[in-house]
């Protein structure tokens, strides 16, 4: 038996919907586990990405920690995939890009509805540095494949991974390629 391929997954500025769609391969997850093992992923307790064959990135880049994690994945993964709309182009969170961060903060933490008097913007050093804009992942590191969709369907992820695991260049047909 050949060694299992190592797969790492992460959600940056995403909603975990792409991870849910990955789980939408349903019972096909069980035979997949004969072929791959998970490294860092929300499904395991491995906190840092080690050397891997495949890295799946959900979500765009909205803060300094996202940048850090994304670079760790690029350094460790032979093939890196932008999984879903947010990783591909920033997605819905990038709708904040036309707004001033200062205005958003002021409203959400100081002047918004139902806040306790004297509420201030959180500023603890433990909170990662936000970026002015939400970026697609390819603006920060080299990406090998882009899988569109919000989210890509479980069937699309399944077909893509099967091609990749078989050593083929993945191609999604018309039926699996969608952007909604």
């Amino acid at each position, binding site marked *: 038996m050949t060694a299992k391929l190592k797969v790492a997954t992460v*959600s940056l500025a995403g909603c975990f919907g792409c991870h849910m769609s990955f789980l939408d391969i349903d019972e096909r997850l*069980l035979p997949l*586990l004969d072929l791959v093992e998970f490294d860092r992923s929300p499904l395991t307790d491995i906190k840092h990405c080690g050397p891997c064959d495949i890295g799946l990135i959900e979500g765009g880049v909205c803060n300094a920690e996202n940048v850090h994690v994304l670079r760790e994945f690029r350094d460790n993964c032979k093939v890196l995939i932008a999984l879903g709309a947010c990783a591909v182009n920033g997605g819905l969170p990038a709708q904040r890009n036309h707004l001033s961060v200062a205005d958003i903060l002021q409203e959400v933490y100081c002047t918004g509805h139902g806040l306790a008097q004297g509420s201030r913007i959180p500023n603890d050093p433990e*909170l990662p540095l*936000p970026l002015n804009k939400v970026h697609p992942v390819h603006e920060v590191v080299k990406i090998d494949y882009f899988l569109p969709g919000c989210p890509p369907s479980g069937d699309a992820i399944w077909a893509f991974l099967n091609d990749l695991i078989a050593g083929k260049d993945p191609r999604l047909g018309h039926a699996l390629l969608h952007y909604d």
Partner: protein
Amino acid sequence: MSFALETASAGHKNLRRVAIEPVSRVEGHGKVTLLLDEHNKVHQVRLHIVEFRGFERFIQGRPYWEVPVMVQRLCGICPVSHHLAASKALDIIVGAKQITPTAEKMRRLMHYGQMLQSHALHFFHLSSPDLLFGFDSDVAQRNIVGVAARYPDIAKQGILLRKFGQEVIFHTAGKRVHGTGSVPGGVNRSLTGAQRNALLADADQMVAWSREAVKIIKELHMQNPALYDAFGTFRSNFMGMVDTQGNLDFYHGGLRAKDADGGILFDNIDYQGYDKLITEEVKPWSYMKFPYLNQLGPETGWYRVGPLARVQTCDRIPTPLAELERQALMAYAAQGGGALMHASLGYHWARMIEMLCAAETVRDLLHDDDLEGTDLMVTGERQREGVGVIEAPRGTLFHHYQVDENDLVTMANLIVSTTNNNHAMNTAVREVASKYLDGHEITEGLLNHIEVAIRAYDPCLSCATHAIGKMPLEVVLLDAAGHELDRKYKQ
């Protein structure tokens, strides 16, 4: 308001920082930091929510009819909750005082399908490794892959329960994740007979497997009461939604809260006035706010929501098998001498009872011919403001919108389920840290105890990061060639 172990006193210097980063096998982005002295005495424990996306602000200026499909992108695990809470708020804005029977039943079916898939995902895929293998078991095994290898039947049932819930969502919403079925004033589709039959074919099996799941967690709890009753246990108020008869209802009802001894704090409250009940406090170390009940204030007014809260605030569950299990849980709590169960791990037990309720409800609803109706939408006198509340898998979810004469959103306020549990989760991690970690050499297994306490609440930290935060420093993002791509906001 500050609580014990929330903030280390300024007198202690040279405290060592230990971080759990990221908190794993939960949905979303969080980390825990501990400050310890040279004897490993715990001085400070905090669960930080570290991401921020700004939904409340950037949906302003958008047409209201986009909102149900935009806001569900808060969360890919429970998108239906946001889809429906927004739809309910917008029903009021389009003047749909009473949606059609077909619309309400389609939404209910979608929602109970979601409850089934989300609870299955949380129990089987995320939490069962801790409960089946032990909190400090081998990290390589402590995941769904380990469960599939050791307990293949349990793993398979979990996968298929989740699949069934996702299929219910697919048929009612059009997609498994981020569907489009619900719209302001109703729904845009109904079911065909073939769709109903396809789902009905598996419905009884799902009820049977859900009963098995309740049995698994109930036995784990009863076989090890010393752990399950005491781990991360603290007294609190509870809040949930019930229908006019006091039945558990995930889709619609009035708000009810109980104090730690089971006394009613308020009952049958119309959620349009939610902002008179609840105020949100901001703390500098988390992007997630800390809500409290106004009648009690910030010190004692914090509360818990979600499965353990709902199962104990309702008078009964309207499906028979789940109701029997609710009675068993309440009897067990009474045996312990209290009116209510306060154990954090009790959430798993209550969650599986709710999954059983969801499976029974989906099966019963599928027999209702209204699901094939063609009367899908109503409108009425246009309003400027509406609040929609739903019991999401993780607890009570509030959506509040104001819309101007051009149909554009001018104000949005969201209190997501996990935010309601923010104080409770922080209390749980402080409790576990002081009981299990204090004075010990910190190991991976001990740190996982902290995560076990957080996981009990099934936090959806993506949902909770709809707000956006800032830092007092500056950072510059450079591309591979050294060109500046972005500069972080500077205060």
